[in-house]
């Protein structure tokens, strides 16, 4: 696959190429998930301040109605996925194992529209600030994983000059095909969303980076893109091509300074899913209450891509995908490289749930606590050019300061190193542990 034609001639060093596994769902068209009896909408679905709840138990709500408003600038509102009543406001299992406050909505089956947002048909003549306000009102967050509120990314401080807007259609995570299907089935929305965001930022250079293993999506988008001045770039197939810094490097040849943000390199990176959501929010006045998610994995009877309302429990999603043929060994929210293993299937789909992946026993990775044999495979694989093996040994023996000096904080937790480690060391877990420790110490120092 890696010899597919790609345009980028600048490669990031390192990276890996795991089994793609995309064949399971890449040819399955996006299906609308049927209406459920109830939805569990987690309030804090983004990075930043938790939103302020404005409904209470027993309230009647409509589809698209505001459930909670943004609790600050770096925050995002949450909207009801359907019409019905608020059954309860309670803790529900979150994807990280920590319970989160959620609004449980009993659906009344009518699915009545009740969004207060007016469609903006003529966005080309709407002021960027109004567009940005719409984006923030619609509760848009980065839909690729980090769930950073979109309007914050679109408000760079004035001293940072943004000249490149890059859309991430790489979908370098194995198994996931949601973005691929979005690009194939909604190319106009994708391109138009790109243009809207570009208008907000006032940027002329718009790029969509797509891994070369999706030639059909590249072709379709190229046809649509020209009229909006969007450039499509076929990227080398290499994980983690979709990681922000690596993507910026591949598209522009700029390196985001260590510890810096994309805007330090004059770039803003957005996800394809976000582009589609922006188009819908602006042209239809539709807040973000549903998203396309891939439900896939060998154990599933019928893997595919679904448009789920936010708040659909994972168990329901698996049921929709035909249930399992045999019991899986892992249920993961997200992709296999960076997703989170779940221990509760009542976890609801959130704004950043790009996939639900089931792995069989044969695919299970058994992490061991064997020592590092210093084979250097992880050094070759690390896209951030750090030395994971010895670094993990330092953390294991509690030498956190030394680990920090050895660039621990640069790790993006992409998992490339643990993917290749022949000693099956849980490297990423070590690094999370080390970062948590260092951050805790820093906090203590400040006090």
């Amino acid at each position, binding site marked *: 696959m890696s010899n597919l034609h790609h345009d980028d001639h600048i490669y990031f060093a390192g990276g890996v190429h795991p089994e793609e596994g995309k064949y399971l769902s890449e040819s399955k068209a996006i299906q609308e998930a049927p209406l459920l009896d109830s939805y569990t909408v987690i309030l804090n679905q983004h990075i930043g301040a938790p939103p302020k709840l404005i409904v209470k138990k027993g309230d009647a709500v409509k589809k698209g109605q505001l459930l909670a408003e943004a609790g600050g600038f770096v925050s995002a509102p949450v909207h009801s996925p359907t019409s019905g009543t608020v059954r309860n406001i309670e803790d529900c299992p979150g994807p990280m194992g920590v319970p989160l406050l959620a609004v449980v909505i009993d659906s009344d089956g009518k699915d009545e529209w009740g969004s207060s947002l007016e469609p903006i048909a003529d966005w080309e003549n709407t002021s960027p600030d109004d567009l940005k306000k719409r984006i923030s009102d619609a509760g848009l967050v980065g839909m690729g994983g980090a769930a950073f509120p979109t309007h914050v990314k679109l408000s760079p401080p004035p001293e940072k000059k943004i000249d490149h807007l890059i859309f991430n259609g790489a979908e370098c995570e194995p198994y996931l095909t949601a973005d691929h299907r979005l690009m194939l089935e909604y190319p106009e929305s994708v391109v138009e969303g790109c243009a809207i965001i570009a208008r907000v930022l006032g940027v002329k250079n718009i790029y969509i980076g797509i891994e070369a293993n999706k030639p059909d999506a590249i072709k379709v988008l190229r046809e649509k893109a020209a009229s909006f001045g969007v450039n499509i770039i076929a990227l080398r197939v290499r994980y983690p091509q979709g990681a922000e810094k690596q993507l910026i490097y591949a598209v522009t040849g700029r390196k985001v300074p*260590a510890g810096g943000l994309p805007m330090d390199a004059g770039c803003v990176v957005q996800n394809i899913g976000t582009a589609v959501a922006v188009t819908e929010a602006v042209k239809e006045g539709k807040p973000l209450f549903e998203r396309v998610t891939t439900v896939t994995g060998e154990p599933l*009877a019928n893997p595919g891509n679904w448009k789920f309302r936010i708040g659909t429990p994972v168990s329901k999603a698996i049921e929709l995908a035909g249930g399992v043929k045999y*019991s899986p*060994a*892992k249920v993961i929210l997200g992709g296999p490289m960076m997703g989170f293993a779940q221990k509760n299937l009542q976890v609801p789909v959130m704004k950043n749930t790009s996939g639900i992946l089931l792995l069989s026993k044969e695919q299970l*990775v058994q992490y061991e606590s064997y*020592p590092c044999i*210093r084979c250097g495979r992880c050094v070759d694989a690390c896209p*951030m050019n750090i030395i994971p093996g010895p670094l993990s040994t330092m953390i294991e023996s509690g030498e956190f300061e030394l680990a920090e000096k050895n660039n621990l904080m640069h790790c993006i937790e992409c998992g490339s190193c643990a993917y290749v480690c022949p000693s099956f060391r849980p490297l990423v877990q070590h690094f999370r542990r080390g970062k948590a420790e260092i951050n805790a110490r820093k906090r203590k120092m400040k006090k």
Partner: protein
Amino acid sequence: MTEEKVNLEENDTTTQSGVFLPKIEELVVSSSPHVHDNQTVRKIMLTVLLALVPSCLCGIYFYGINALMVIIYCVVFSVAVEVLWCRIAGKKTDTWKDCSAILTGVLLAMNLSAGIPWWVCLIGAGIGIGIGKQIYGGLGYNPFNPALVARVALLVAFPKLMTTWVPSRFMTENPVYDKIITYAPSAEQLKGKVIPFLSNTCDSITCATPLGVVKELSKSGVHNVSAFDAVSNTPMYWDYFFGNMGGCLGETSVLALLAGGIFLIAMKIIKWHIPVTYIATVAIFSAAIHAANPAITPGPLFHVITGGLFLGAFFMATDMVTSPITKKGMIIFGIGCGIITSLIRIWGNYPEGVSFSILLMNAVVPLIDKFTVTVPFGYKAAEKKVGA
């Protein structure tokens, strides 16, 4: 298929619609990533063993069945020591299954003469696995290459045994070598000393390594180009290349070692950095000395294809645990090994310096690692910004 069915029948987490949901109690939670490329330590070790097969075969071909026996002894003893040690120390005893002990055994055998008695193999295995590896905590913690620790310890303990080499069986049959003895410097030149290539003692025929001959020559003060010519000439180079000479089991055939090494590089088990810089440094260094004064030492080609350089460069210095982890570090390591090897060979007391040099460089690996920490992606830009 039947298994699947059983699995599903037992499944009580069925929904009303009749589909099966995952069973929670069979789920595993772990950190990401949740997939792996399936490379294991065992596979790596097996690949290295595979790469050593040609050299083993060469050894057996040139030195006969004795060579095979030495290899078997070393492997069996190494594994035995590993299992025994782990049992006594109360550790998991299945560590030998990662094949690293087998590899140490083979590498140890490669460093021994085919005529070595079995008990030397036992002592070697004990030192290599016990003192070279397990005492530090096992694979991954050892600072020195276990096989080399064993070799050096044996060399110090049994200097005579360890430097008595069995001639390749073609040497004894080949009259060329008799001729070479006649080419050798005359007794008068040697001030009464005789440097024999092949010597027929009462019970066996022994033989010197080319490096040994050269060392004896220079030790006895013969700084004479023609004396070196006796062991460094084109027909003999071909013999050295194919392995038709006296020496350790595995050191002989440059061809076989090269094939194994290239295989390892192709399989991405080792990187080219250490072997190439190591061999190149030896070549350049000896070329320089040779050019300065050809009477001190033979030319670079002689140094490259005799002795244990290829074995050391491709299989010993590249030992993952005891070599630097970054490419920059590997280059420093290779150069360091090359310089020390040449120094010992040309001016040292021992004819061969590969083992010593690798061990010495092993000791400075932590230091090298410390100074070759890579610069993270994007780091330079940050520094520039700070400066501006």
